[in-house]
């Protein structure tokens, strides 16, 4: 394995940024930390859990899929060589799950082309990044098991770097990296991981809620309770690393000219399931919330979940950002309470 002195990191990322579009944790002027295009001044390692997993790299908020010019159709597939530096292992699992879903039975080329050209560098978590982290419950952290090109372990003054792919190895071929004995590195990583697992509490209510959902034993009142207060902002879907639903629409600029585009969508919106006749199989907010949470905790696809627990990766962002506190954690606890 390789190591890198912490003081040399910025220089390394800067060198990468000359060849790749690097997205890295960035501290903005007002204190917020987000994934943004690498800039020396704003690059930060003190970033905890950024509000959004950068899924827009693979599935932009809005994306033109084809253009029509004078009644002729041109497909638009855009991608560039990108490095995602420092995503958390929960987000790595989110990306694995989303990629499986987007390529399993039909290849979504708009997504997969971008994915193929992205290099993923995970920053392993030394402990919970805030009070809603529950990756140890969903088997998606604190350390990534697969999918990454490189994974960094923060050892204080330096990083130990695990290589996950040939592409990752290439990245380490030049620069101020030093070799470390694999056995010693492995031991250090083991200690790091054990401490992190000890510090991130397992949320047993999630398991119990999954059991009750499977047995059809979750009380309908749970959904009515949450449905009554949901403000239908769709934020839970937008911050979720495993939500990839989109809506497709056309924009005509002149007769015979225009674009077809897709944009992020959310299953909490009524129109998401409304049929052409006007009939809506999910006619109210309670049933839409039920669908959303069952999708994460009950109706996930075995091959999509990539050896984790379910369709939720335990990042806790829905609990962090829902204005009326309807996140996976709150829902699981309410199901168990009833």
């Amino acid at each position, binding site marked *: 394995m390789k190591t890198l002195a912490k003081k040399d990191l910025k220089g390394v990322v800067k060198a990468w940024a000359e060849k790749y579009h690097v997205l890295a944790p960035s501290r903005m*002027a007002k204190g917020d930390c987000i994934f943004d295009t690498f800039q020396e001044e704003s690059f930060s390692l003190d970033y905890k859990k950024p509000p959004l997993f950068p899924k827009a790299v693979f599935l932009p908020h809005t994306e033109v899929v084809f253009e029509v010019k004078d009644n002729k159709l041109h497909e638009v597939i855009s991608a560039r060589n990108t490095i995602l530096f420092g995503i958390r292992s929960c987000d790595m699992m989110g990306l694995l799950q989303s990629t499986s879903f987007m390529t399993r039975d039909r290849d979504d080329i708009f997504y997969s082309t971008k994915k193929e050209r992205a290099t993923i560098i995970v920053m392993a978590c030394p402990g919970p990044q805030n009070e809603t982290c529950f990756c140890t419950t969903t088997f998606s952290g604190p350390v990534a098991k697969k999918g990454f090109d490189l994974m960094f372990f923060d050892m204080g003054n330096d990083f130990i770097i695990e290589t996950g792919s040939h592409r990752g190895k290439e990245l380490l071929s030049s620069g101020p990296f030093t070799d470390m004995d694999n056995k010693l590195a492995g031991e250090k990583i083991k200690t790091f991981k054990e401490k992190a697992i000890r510090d991130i509490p397992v949320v047993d209510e999630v398991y119990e809620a999954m059991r009750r959902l499977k047995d059809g034993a979750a009380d309908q009142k749970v959904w009515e309770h949450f449905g*009554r*207060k949901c403000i*239908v902002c769709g934020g839970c879907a937008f911050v979720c690393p495993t939500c990839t639903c989109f809506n497709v629409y056309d924009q005509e600029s002149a007769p015979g000219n225009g674009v077809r585009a897709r944009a992020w969508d959310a299953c909490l919106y009524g129109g998401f399931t409304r049929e052409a006749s006007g009939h809506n199989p999910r006619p109210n907010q309670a049933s839409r919330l039920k669908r959303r949470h069952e999708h994460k905790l009950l109706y996930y696809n075995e091959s999509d979940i990539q050896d984790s627990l379910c369709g939720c990766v335990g990042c806790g962002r829905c609990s962090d950002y829902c*204005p*009326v*506190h309807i996140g996976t954690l709150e829902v699981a606890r309410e199901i168990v309470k009833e």
Partner: protein
Amino acid sequence: MTNSINEFEDADLFLVTGSNTTAQHPLIGSRIVNAKERGAKLLLIDPREIPLAGFADLHLRQNIGTDVAVLNGMMNIAIEEDLYDKGFVEERTEGFEQLKSTVSRYTPRVVEKISGIPAHDLEKAARMYAIADKAMIVYAMGITQHTTGTDNVKTCANLAMLTGHIGRPSTGVNPLRGQNNVQGACDMGALPNVYSGYQPVADPAIKKKFEEAWGIQGLDDKAGLTITDMMVAARKGEIKSLYIMGENPMMSDPDTSDIEHALSSLEFLVVQDIFLSETAAKADVVFPAASFAEKEGTYTNTERRVQITKKAVASPGQARPDWEIICDVSRLAGYPMNYSSPADVMKEINDLTPSYSGITYKRLEMCHGLQWPCPNEEHPGTGYLHRDRFSKGLGTFLPCEFKPLAEVPDEEYDFFLTTGRIYYHYHTGTMTRRTSILEREAPVPFVEVNPDDAKRLGIRNGDQVEVTSRRGSIKARAEVTTRVPKRVVFSTFHYYEAPVNLLTNAAFDPVAKIPEYKGCAVKVRRCI
């Protein structure tokens, strides 16, 4: 708002009236919902059964346009039962005897007759509000869009002062502003009678200050016209030209046929907008403006917080930021405006506007906004207003008598029409109806009809109905729902296919000149 949004988290009681908060101010609505879960009380006064009704401890459904009577009735009870804040009234207010004398006529029985609210419910409501420790009044257009809008607002203020629910954290009167920058537009003097920071045009010292700053003489010291007045003047030929920015009166103003006539009577119409709105389509000249994401500057939100925004995307075509367009027009008209950037404009705002003096661009770059009044650069901004004293000194009670709507139902036009908004669309739909998911969520104009009325008129859910007032007629899909009381129909002004302002009454409040969007008389029939 006299309070800050964060103060919702500590209030014990919310009196929400004329605000569909979860739909129109969802992030404030969600704070009310969360507060309910920690045990706060919610008192709702609204004719419609809005989503907050599901959380209310008490929901009073008054007849449309009877707000002054209802609030006077609550004050009557607070005084009769000795529940008002005598200390506050004594130390902080004046005019109590007049208030007492006016509200003494609004006994629960009298109010029941006017408003339809059962006397014992009104008593319960008055007690709940009066004895709460920290109570906030929350209102929006349901209070203001009446011919008695000014009276309604004064009466809310009377109630808060009488019970001492103002001037402390989480106690106050909170009109929720409907646009991200309508507070800012008013603060900047986009009103006919004041310069920025509400400095009167009629004040000679203020006039001199602005003349010196702008290097000119002879600024007009008489108030100009409101939008409502302008349309009347245009129709009469007294106004020859209008320059309309970011406003769509062909959809948003009452009695559309009359507005169309007014705009057609102009010799010259300029419209500056981000899309070719219904109004822009009538213009002689259209200036394409940049959208919020295509420019930088500041917005002042509902809690008086000035916040900076940065340009995120390039403008399409020839679209430019409003300030640049205005500077060019001014230069061509013979008065060069030499601002180099929004920061430069802000510098002038700081120099000329006492309440904004400390809100500099430099400070805004480094924080999440500053709330006015903020008189100097060391000042942290003001979270809530009227601590220790009102800006005018003592708070004056301004008692009002109940006055009915300008147009009440009769035998022929036998329904109240009340208008409003829905969650998915914004005003005249210029932006939201061009946004795929929002349009998908609410693609069709609708009219809410009470099931009893629907049955009587043979209207089934989803039927096309025709709604007619003395001014016009629209067709829309019936939504049969108990959300509206009997003899009331509700619709929105979002849809050009069924522009509800063809129906509304252009009668307006004598002071604020705000039209009575919230009530007029219509008849309803099923389309065959």
